[in-house]
């Protein structure tokens, strides 16, 4: 009887010992990675620091769009190019840390609060940057750029002022080559079948949608969604065409919430009636941010029209997929949303993309700036944005890269924009805007579509005035207000028509009460302060 018990005890002890060792192992390796830049003890002597490889960690968006069978985004042609041409010569290990695209702010906040963020981080969200600045979490990159960033300064010249907060260069904003934000497109082959012209006004556009619904020119068996990709961001051109622009000055444009701008309500009323008429995607409120739902609707040929990021059907590849499914399909960029006096106002981006930052606790700020400067050299921009000459692109006679329409090109470049983070859009040269636009029309098959899209997206566009004084209330409430705006949008568009005004006014009141009012008042002050200095 005793013997089995003793064996059991021994077995238990062995397990306990093993777990303790595993735990010790874990903590040991954690320590190793967090202080990876420090020389290891075992070498001894001074020379160990000279030979030590430094690890530079860089944030990388994971858009969950890697084609099946392709290498992971942390180890593919682009990362290898970076490692071989920047990392190895400088004895640096460049390591990419992925962050899901739709959760970039959440994930970044957690990484920052736990002091485990990569050396190079970025976000599109300005309040998040201001929050880090306010709490002293960022490295002042000004002096480092002066010393180590000549290429960076040259390429990013128009963008750099946007990265100055409280007088210091806490962020390096990526240069946005094209400022167009959204463009509407429509299935031209459907219009042709129905003998309809390309819509030039809002009424014509709605008429075309009605015809799509009624006659189902795509033979979808009743599944047709005349107008899709319905969300607040992409509905702004439509809503803006109802604004009474003569009553809106720059200060109001900057400070007043879109829901309160004169005329705004009528824009949403049109969307509401389109919803009840069955002209827009009835389940639009179910789609997550950045979901591929709309792309699927286009590819399967059930979407008739949509407003997307400018040129998205080309750069995300779903126009090409649609054509593969249906060679007769034609998308055409249009610009139908018109004010009574014939203007087509729509929001455009500031000349910047994501804010690139280095956390204050990073020990590799200098290397980070050197990395970005290396990236700003023309030869590296060319490779990181276009891949390999002869495989994924050729050089045109005028000196800009033209993409090849090959499977190799597609697999090489499906997420190229996530590596060359200092640029948003294809870039050839700071001195030649034409080359830059031409380079962005990179897919020859769709060159006209791209150029038309960019033109339509720029037409009568406006940029929100710049004020670089951080707005406290905005830092605090921006995310909650942004979430609530999505909720408002869904409820307002789906409200029963007879209750539309009531729902709209009530939601706007709630919005103002939960922080909208505070943000508006502080923004008014900040505007006066900034422009009256």
């Amino acid at each position: 009887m005793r013997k089995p018990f003793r064996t059991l005890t021994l077995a238990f002890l062995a397990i306990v010992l093993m777990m303790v060792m595993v735990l010790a192992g874990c903590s040991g390796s954690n320590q190793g990675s967090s202080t990876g830049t420090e020389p290891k003890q075992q070498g001894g002597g001074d020379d160990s620091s000279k030979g030590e490889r430094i690890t530079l960690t860089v944030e990388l968006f994971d858009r969950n769009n890697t084609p099946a069978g392709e290498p992971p985004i942390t180890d593919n042609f682009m990362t290898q190019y970076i490692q071989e041409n920047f990392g190895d010569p400088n004895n640096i290990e460049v390591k990419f840390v992925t962050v899901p695209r739709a959760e970039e702010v959440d994930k970044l906040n957690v990484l920052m609060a736990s002091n485990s963020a990569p050396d190079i981080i970025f976000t599109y969200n300005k309040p998040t940057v201001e929050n880090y600045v306010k709490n002293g979490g960022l490295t002042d990159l000004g002096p480092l750029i002066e010393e180590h960033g000549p290429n960076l300064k040259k390429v990013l010249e128009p963008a750099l002022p946007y990265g100055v907060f409280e007088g210091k260069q806490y962020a390096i904003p990526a240069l946005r080559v094209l400022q167009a934000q959204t463009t509407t497109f429509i299935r031209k082959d459907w219009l042709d079948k129905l003998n309809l012209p390309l819509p030039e006004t809002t009424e014509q556009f709605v008429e075309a949608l009605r015809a799509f619904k009624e006659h189902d020119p795509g033979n979808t068996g009743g599944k047709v969604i005349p107008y899709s990709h319905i969300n607040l961001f992409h509905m702004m051109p439509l809503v803006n065409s109802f604004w009474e622009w003569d009553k809106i000055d720059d200060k109001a444009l900057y400070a007043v919430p879109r829901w309160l701008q004169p005329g705004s309500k009528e824009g949403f009323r049109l969307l509401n009636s389109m919803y009840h008429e069955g002209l827009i995607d009835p389940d639009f409120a179910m789609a997550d941010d950045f979901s591929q739902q709309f792309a699927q609707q286009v590819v399967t040929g059930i979407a008739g029209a949509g407003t997307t990021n400018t040129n998205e059907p080309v750069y995300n590849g779903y126009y090409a997929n649609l054509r593969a499914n249906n060679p007769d399909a034609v998308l055409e960029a249009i610009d139908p949303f018109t004010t009574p006096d014939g203007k087509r106002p729509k929001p455009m981006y500031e000349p910047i993309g994501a804010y690139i930052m280095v956390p204050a606790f990073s020990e590799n700020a200098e290397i980070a700036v050197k990395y970005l400067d290396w990236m700003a050299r023309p030869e590296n921009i060319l490779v990181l944005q276009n891949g390999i000459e002869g495989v994924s692109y050729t050089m045109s006679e005028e000196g800009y890269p033209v993409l090849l329409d090959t499977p190799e090109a597609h697999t090489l470049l499906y997420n190229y924009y996530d590596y060359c983070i200092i640029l948003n859009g294809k870039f050839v040269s700071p001195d030649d805007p034409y080359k830059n636009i031409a380079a962005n029309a990179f897919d020859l098959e769709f060159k006209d579509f791209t150029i038309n899209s960019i033109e339509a997206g720029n037409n009568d566009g406006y940029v929100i005035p710049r004020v670089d004084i951080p707005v406290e209330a905005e830092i605090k409430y921006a995310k909650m207000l942004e979430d609530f705006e999505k909720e408002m949008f869904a409820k307002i568009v789906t409200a029963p028509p007879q209750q539309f005004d009531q729902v709209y006014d009530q939601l706007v009141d709630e919005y103002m009460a939960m922080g909208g009012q505070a943000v508006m008042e502080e923004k008014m002050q900040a505007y006066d302060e900034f422009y009256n200095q």
Partner: protein
Amino acid sequence: MNSLRRQWPLYVLMILPMTFFIIFKYIPMAGVMVAFKDYNMFQGIWASEWVGLDVFREVFSMPQFYRALRNTLMLNFFSLLTFPIPIILAILLNELRIHWYKRVSQTLLYLPHFISWVIVGGMAIRLLATHTGSVNQFIKNLGGNPIPFLENEFLWILTYTGAGVWHYAGWGTILYLAALTTINKELYEAADVDGASRLRKIWHVTLPGIKPTIIVLFILQIGRMAEISFEQPYALRNELVMDVAQVISTYVYTVGIQSAQFSIATAVGLFQSVVGLILLLTAEFLSRKINNQGIF
């Protein structure tokens, strides 16, 4: 002392779980300090400034907080109504006489427990979306009107509760099934001798046999009324039903993680724990009054 010498391996074995609880459950409790500080995430907890109850004052002035609190209690109340379902399932399983049939149904009932809420959320949209969901397509083909399972607030609550039952009920039977095996077989035999029917036996032998288990689980569930899982509401909600779907856990996520207002999020979490503790103690107290048995 004697027992220590004799049973030392057992005490040694306890060290690991104790270490786990101290490191992962007790030490982090010090973090609630954040609720009383103007927390700066780069300076850390100690260096941030004390602000007393300012954070709580701010929380209690937020309309969104009351909405989240109300929804948490409401959704949990609906879930509490489904409390008897695992008991009924367990008794039904217990009454099954064909062995393989019982095994198969048990396994099928457990399976949903292992499916992540994220997947359940995706399935809910595919099945229940008003215009494109399969269930509504089916209803439409039969000539009916689509039912807005996910868009109407009341129907959403039912969908939420139903998904919860689907997910948890089978798994919840495990404890009851275990309790059922402890019932003395002789009681059933005696009841047979007295000529009791099946239903009578369930009522007079089975149910009293698992009563203590039912009470303990009920008290625990009451104690959890103020807390709510993050995944279930987050995966099932959409913009149209936020008025009933924004709960404390998702609110803390929005405020704390997404807006980096860690002090406010911590204060909300602390408040939730205090309410939970009060509810738990009340349930325990009532149970002792009524049944003369509780859990502590």
